[in-house]
């Protein structure tokens, strides 16, 4: 790393009024989470025999996986294509992905009836099941993400191991382990980086395969055999906006100057990626002639229109504009729109489009479901904040080279 800035733990007060607000949301969610484990799914959710999957799958899992795509897209750009310029974004993106997938896994544990059997797919295989593939890939990728994160741990603690109390005697040996780990990881890390990208491509698409088996139970605006491709393309498209949004948000939160020129040049990729996604989406719509359903005025057609216009077409136009890419506010809004678009797409695919027979009621998430979903998001933000304050994740100018630094720390 021949840069004049390097990742170091952020020094900042942990609790601010905003953080306390988020903590309250998290605590509220955890109350309902506890109720779910004590009294069962029926006590907390609005799920029934017609609607077996709700927002815990549609948002927490499906959208969660999509929004964590920043991890593998940035890793591919920075480490596989070796665009070193984006190196500064890899670590935050990796952390987002790691936390994101951790919470995806937690959401799965929350949603499945027998959470204590979550390990079953490891030994009970069904190669025909898209869900099995998603499960295995997510589990493997989560492991890969933890391994990819290890260098940050070794970097932080190597030579600084200081265990409390009688554990002091292990200080030396732990330090040695960290050293060995660091050396080995350095040699094999590329294996995991490529594996991470491959695994991501696999399960990002397989999540799209999930609803195909529902066949005619799914609204034709979304039901298509190319769903896996659409899911993969939208994951590609949402990766960078997610990184941009989170970088802008955290620099604002920590009172740092955003790395705007890196973000602006990263934003150049978003337009084409979003364009490819839009092209496939429209192409599919014309081949299947599903656009006829847009002529009907109902929840499905309205949601589809919002998803496409607000979530894809408007941000596409914004990302294609150099002026928008040059402004922080423009980048932030455009990124938020893409994220909203993908989030809504996953929600639509799993919740709105799913129209089971034999019921005239429709599903609306319960307070408990919403509380747990928001609670998980809040927890993720809190953990992200804690991690960047403990581990060397966010790149900041090093003091000795402060004159050369492009990014000054405001008020540090």
């Amino acid at each position, binding site marked *: 790393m021949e840069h004049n800035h390097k990742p170091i733990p952020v020094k900042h007060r942990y609790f601010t009024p905003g953080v306390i607000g988020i903590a309250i949301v998290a605590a509220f969610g955890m109350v309902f989470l506890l109720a779910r484990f004590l009294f069962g799914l029926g006590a907390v959710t609005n799920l029934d025999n017609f609607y077996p999957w709700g927002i815990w799958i549609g948002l927490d899992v499906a959208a969660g996986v999509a929004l964590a795509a920043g991890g593998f897209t940035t890793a*591919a750009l920075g480490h596989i294509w070796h665009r070193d310029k984006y190196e500064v974004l890899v670590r935050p993106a990796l952390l987002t992905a790691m936390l994101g997938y951790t919470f995806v896994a937690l959401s799965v544990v929350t949603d499945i009836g027998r959470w204590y059997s979550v390990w079953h797919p490891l030994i*009970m295989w069904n190669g025909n*099941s898209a869900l099995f593939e998603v499960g295995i890939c997510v589990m493997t990728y989560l492991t890969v993400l933890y391994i990819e994160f290890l260098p940050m741990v070794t970097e932080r603690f190597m030579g600084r191991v200081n265990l409390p109390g009688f554990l002091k005697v292990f200080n030396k040996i732990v330090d040695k382990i960290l050293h060995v780990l660091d050396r080995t990881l350095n040699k094999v890390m590329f294996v995991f980086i490529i594996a991470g990208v491959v695994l991501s491509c696999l399960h990002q698409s397989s999540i799209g395969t999930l609803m195909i088996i529902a066949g005619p139970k799914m609204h034709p605006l979304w039901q298509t055999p190319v769903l896996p491709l659409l899911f993969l393309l939208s994951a590609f498209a949402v990766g960078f906006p997610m990184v941009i949004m989170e970088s802008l948000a955290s620099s604002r939160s920590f009172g740092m100057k955003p790395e705007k020129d890196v973000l602006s040049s990263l934003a150049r990729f978003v337009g084409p990626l979003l364009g490819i996604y839009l092209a496939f989406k429209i192409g599919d719509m014309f081949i299947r002639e599903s656009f006829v359903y847009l002529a009907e005025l109902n929840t499905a057609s309205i949601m589809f229109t919002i998803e496409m216009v607000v979530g894809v077409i408007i941000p596409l136009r914004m990302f294609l504009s150099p002026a928008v890419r040059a402004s922080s506010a423009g980048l932030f809004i455009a990124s938020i729109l893409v994220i909203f678009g993908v989030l809504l797409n996953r929600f639509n695919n799993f919740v709105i489009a799913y129209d089971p027979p034999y019921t005239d009621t429709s599903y609306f998430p319960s307070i408990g479901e919403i509380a747990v979903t928001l609670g998980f998001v809040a927890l993720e933000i809190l953990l992200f904040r804690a991690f960047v304050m403990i581990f060397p994740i966010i790149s900041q100018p090093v003091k000795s080279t402060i004159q050369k630094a492009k990014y000054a720390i405001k008020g540090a």
Partner: protein
Amino acid sequence: MGKQTRRDFLKVTAAIGGTAAGITALTPKQAKAASPEILSEDRMGVLVDTTVCIGCRRCEWMCKKVHGYDAGDIETYSNEEVFGRMRRPQNEGYTVLNRYDNTKNPITPYHVKVQCMHCDRPACVSACIVGAFTKTEKGAVIWDTDKCIGCRYCMVACPFQIPTFEYDKAIEPDIRKCDFCYERTAEGLLPGCVDICPVEALTYGKRRDLITIAEKRMKLYPDRYINRIFGHTEVGGTSWMYLAGKDFSELDFPKLSDAPAPGVSESIQHGIFAYFVPPLALYALLGGIMWVTKNKEKKSGEEE
């Protein structure tokens, strides 16, 4: 990242290749478990004649009884008020009857028995993340509750919206659906509902015999039946099949194509994972790109 050597790269790549090859060798056996070849020519089925059923609901009572639930007093099942609304199978009652008007003869309405159709190519078997569902050689689609993790993907996948789930249980919630009285038939008994039906509106027999019988009935009584056996070809064929006096869509049967429900999703799955070739190819491609861009970088570094 910068320290790795060419040798490391090759070594590790080879190791991954070996592992993947091992997995590849295992996979086809797994995939075969749900293939249609295991279906016996003599597999059993039930022909439900909705024009014969009198709506006595004794099948509902028997179903609860043979599965160990509190079935209550059999005479209370003569209560016809329940036909006022459409009912669906429940956790503790895997079958229900629904009533539909018979315009040809209003005095004898039609009754449609609802339970698992026991598809020949079941979506649930294909979907189940842990492979808990099995289509048995004899026809029944059953599930191993010990494997189940409660993900409810089978409920999403089922084209007939049959499996139910014990949402109110915090521990060991289970999927529930008709099991074609798998244990009773293994003992040589008839499925409970077939056994008790007073008018034999449910005929239990080999699926191919049932098709012959159904065709004969339709030919003999063209006024009584519409010319279609539901379940003969729908979603690749089902073990339970229906005869009706009016269009199946008016009897709340779903409109389904003849393509097996898991067909598209399975071909996508096997397309992506065709012996792990596509993932490995992607892996190799990315490795190649990594190697090339790295060398380029090195070269440009040297030039500087």
